[in-house]
């Protein structure tokens, strides 16, 4: 079974703080994704990575950056957290390929920015 873990289930930070969310997978998947999920808006893609040190912007990259130094690890960074970044953050992984097949999700991190 694919296992995708996220560093925290719940996180409370203050406005202006730098926030690191980490995702680790154990299935050697090439692709990794960061989404945020907000009520009524569904899942929106922030960034994805298809290989080590490679990254692509998703639909809402503003205010976020990512890092993928190792294949199994994909980090989402909020350089200066703001209250509008309060959300549920979901990491996902998938196999490489021109046509995306199944994605496997972590349990999510619920971030509250005060």
């Amino acid at each position, binding site marked *: 079974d694919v296992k995708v873990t996220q560093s925290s289930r719940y996180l409370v930070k203050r406005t202006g703080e730098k926030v690191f969310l980490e995702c680790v997978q154990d299935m050697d998947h090439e692709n990794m*994704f960061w989404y945020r999920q907000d009520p009524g808006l*569904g*899942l929106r893609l922030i960034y994805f990575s298809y290989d080590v040190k490679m990254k692509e912007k998703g639909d809402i990259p503003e205010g976020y950056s990512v890092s993928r130094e190792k294949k199994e690890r994909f980090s989402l960074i909020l350089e200066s957290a703001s209250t509008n970044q309060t959300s549920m953050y979901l990491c996902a992984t998938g196999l490489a390929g021109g046509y*995306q097949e*199944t*994605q496997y*999700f972590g*349990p999510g991190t619920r971030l509250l920015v005060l």
Partner: protein
Amino acid sequence: SQQGEEDPQALSIQEGENATMNCSYKTSINNLQWYRQNSGRGLVHLILIRSNEREKHSGRLRVTLDTSKKSSSLLITASRAADTASYFCSENAGNMLTFGGGTRLMVKP
């Protein structure tokens, strides 16, 4: 990217009844996938239907796809209280998935 839409946004049924959720999408897809999310958790993949398929079954799940109408439906038969969750469709038109807003299903025991 454009998000698809699920309909209804919320559905409440009694245990044993069937639940039908619909999804409309906007692009020309390679495949369409349905996911389930229990409250406060990550998404779990349920079923994938390719653009050249019209119907697919998996246990109590039945998915249909109508590419001419850009729509799909998910039917859960003989629902159980444990089916209570949010259900999302996801369209795949390239190397990414685009998710709809989901249908919240409540199955009352």
